[in-house]
C-alpha cells in the first residue's frame, strides 16, 4: 500500500468518524467539532491529490476552506450560545420546535 492510498484511507476514516459523530452525538458543540473533523478529512484528501498531481491549486484551495470554516464556526458558536441560553440545554433533541 503506497503513501497516497494510505493518506486517502486516513482521509476517508476521518470523514466517516466525523459523520458518525454528527449522527450519533447529541451535544451541539460535539456535533460542531465532528463537522470540523469531516471538513479536515476532505482537506486531507485535497492535499493528497494536490501532491500526487504536482499541482499547487489543491493546496491553495485548502487554505480557502480553512478561511470559510473559521467564518462558519464564528457564526455557529454564537448560534449555539443563543440556543443554549433559550433552552438551558446542549441536547440537540430538545430543539424540535418545528417538528411537523
Amino acid at each position, binding site marked *: 500500500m503506497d503513501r497516497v492510498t494510505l493518506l486517502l484511507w486516513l482521509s476517508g476514516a476521518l470523514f466517516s468518524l466525523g*459523520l458518525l459523530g*454528527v*449522527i450519533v452525538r*447529541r451535544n451541539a458543540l460535539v*456535533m460542531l467539532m465532528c463537522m470540523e473533523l469531516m471538513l479536515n478529512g476532505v482537506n486531507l484528501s485535497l492535499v493528497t491529490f494536490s501532491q500526487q498531481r504536482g499541482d499547487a491549486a489543491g493546496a491553495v484551495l485548502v487554505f480557502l476552506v480553512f478561511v470559510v470554516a473559521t467564518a462558519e464556526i464564528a457564526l455557529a458558536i454564537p448560534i449555539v450560545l443563543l440556543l443554549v441560553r433559550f433552552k438551558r440545554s446542549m441536547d*440537540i433533541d430538545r430543539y*424540535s420546535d*418545528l*417538528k*411537523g
Partner: protein
Amino acid sequence: MPLLLPHTLALIALLPLFGFLLNGFFATALGGHRANERVASIVGCAFPIAAFALTIKAFLDLQAGGFTPIVEPLYRWALIGSSSFEIAFYFDRLSAIMTLVVTGVGSVIHIYSTGYMHADKSYGRFFAHLNLFLFFMLLLVLGRSLLVLFVGWEGVGLASYLLIGFWFDDLTNAKAGRKAFITNRIGDAGFLLGMFLLYRAFGTLDMDTINGAFLTGSEVAMIVPASLVGLLLFIGATGKSAQIPLYVWLPDAMAGPTPVSALIHAATMVTAGVYLTARMSGIYMMAPEASQVMAVVGVLTAFFAATVALVQTDIKKVLAYSTVSQLGFMFLALGVGAYGVAIFHVVTHAFFKACLFLGAGSVIHALGGEQDIRKMGGLRTKIPVTFWTFAIATAAIAGIPGLAGFFSKDEILWYAFASAKGGAPWLWGMAALTALMTAFYMFRLLWLTFMGASRMSHEVEHHVHESPISMTGVLMLLALLSAGGGYIAIPHFLEAQIPLPPIVESLEHYEHTLLIVSIVLAFAGLGLAVFMYGGPPSRAEAIKQGSLPVHRLLSGKYFVDELYDRAIVKPLVWFSDVVLLRGSDKLLDGSLNGLASLAQRSAGMLGRMQTGSLHLYALLVMVGIVGALLWSWRHV
C-alpha cells in the same frame, strides 16, 4: 310638403316618446308629481293626437305619390364588417292602415282614459306608460327592417307588462304582468331564430327586400326553407297575438286598467302578430305548410276560446276570450292566404273591440269596480249611452248584417271555404260554428249586463251613474266606426300590394249560400241568447244543470293553466330548487371543501417528515449523498 318635414315618419313615432318623457319626469313620483292631473292629460293626449294628424298627412303624401312606398332612412345604427344596420322607416299601404289605426284608436283611448283614470294616485305614470306603448307600437308598424320591428315588438311587450301590473299593490296583478312577459319571451325565441335564418341567407333584415327575394324566387331565397322561417316567425306571432299554445297570458292580462285592455290587449298590440305575418306575406306565399299550420292553429284557437267565453262570468274575461277567438279568425285568414282580409278584420276588430272594452270600462266605472255580470242587469235605462254603444259594438262583432264585423268576418269565412291556397270546408265549418258561438256569448253578455231585472246590491244600484263626456264621447265615436267601418274596402285597397288568393272555381257559386248561412247563424246566436237569458233565470240554470260536466270544463278554461302548471312550471321549479339551488350548493361547496381538506391532509402527512431530529436529517443527507455517488459511479 316633404321639404318642411323631412322626417314625418320618425316624428310620428317620436311624438309619443316625448309625451312619455315629459309625463314620466314631471307627473310621476320620479319628478315629485310636479305636473298635476290636468297638465298630465293635456301632455298625454296632445302627442298621440299630433301623431295621428301627422299620420293623416303622411297618408295624403303617400296617396299623392301614387302609393309608392315612402322609405325614410333615419340613422345608421351599426356597421359590422360590410353589413350595416339602418334605422329606417317604411310607409306603404299596409303600414299606413296600421299606423292610422294605432294612432287613431290610441288617441281616443287616451282621451277616454282622462275620464276613467280620474283621481287615480298614479295618473301621470299611467299616461307616461300609455305613451311609451304608442311609441313602441309605432316603431313596430313603421320599421323597415325586422330589427326595428323587433325593438318595437319587445318594447310593446315591456309596456304591456308595465300596464298589466299597473296596480301592482295587488300581487295578482303583478303576477299577471309577469305571466304575460314570460309567455311572450317564449314566442320571441322563435321570432329571433327566424330572424337569424333570414339574416344568414340575405345579409339584410329589410322586410321589403326579403319579401321581394322570396316572391321573385331569387336563388338566395332558395337556400332558406320558407316554411321553416314561416313557422319560426309564427311562433313569435302566437306569443304576441295569443294563439294556441301561448294564449294563456291574455285572459290574465285583464288585470290591467280597462283602457289598457282596450288599447293593448284588443285593438293594437295583439294584432302585431297578424301585421308581422301580413308584412312577411312573401315568405308565407312560398310556404304552404306553414300557412296550413297557421290556418289550423287559428281556427282551433278561435273555436276553443269561443267555447270558454260561453260561460265566463267576468265581463272583461268574456271580452278577453272573445279577443283570443277573433285573433284566431285573423290567423285563419292569414293561413288561407287572405292577408288583406286579415288586416281588414284587424281594423274592424280594433273598432268594435275597443268600443266593447271601453263600454265595459264604463260599466265597471258606473258600478264602482264590479266586474261580475251575475251582479249586474237592468243597466239599460241607467246608463243609456253606454248601453247603446255597447249594443252596436256587440251587433258588429256578432256579425249582424251591415255592421263592420259582418263584412270582415264574412270575408274570412268565405276565404276559409273557397281559397285556392288552403281553404277547406271543415275550416269553414269550425269558423262558422265559432261565429254562432260568438253571437251567442256576446248577446248573452249584453243581456246579462243591461237587460232584465237588476241583480245589483241596493248600495251599488244607488250609485250607478253615466260616465263623463270624455268617456261617452269616445264610446259614441267608436260605435259609429263599428257600424260604418265595414264600408272601408281594405282588402281591395291592399290588393295592389298583397294580392288576395284565387278562389276555387267550382266553389264560386256557393258565395251567396254561405252569406245567407252566416247571417242566419248570427241571428240564431242572438235568438238563442235571448231565449236563454231573456226569460226567467231558471231557464239558464236548468240548461247549466243539464250539462254540468261540460260547464265545469269550460268554466275551468279546459284547465290549460293547471296543465301548464303541472307540466312546465312545477318541474321547472323543482329543477331549480333541488338541482340548481341545493345541487349546486353541494357541488360547489363540496368541491371547494374537498380541495381544502385534501390540502390539509396531505400537509399533515408531509409535515410528519419534519421530525425535529437533527440526527435523522444528517443521516438522510448522508444517505442521499452516498446514493448519488453510487449512482454516478455506476452510470458515468
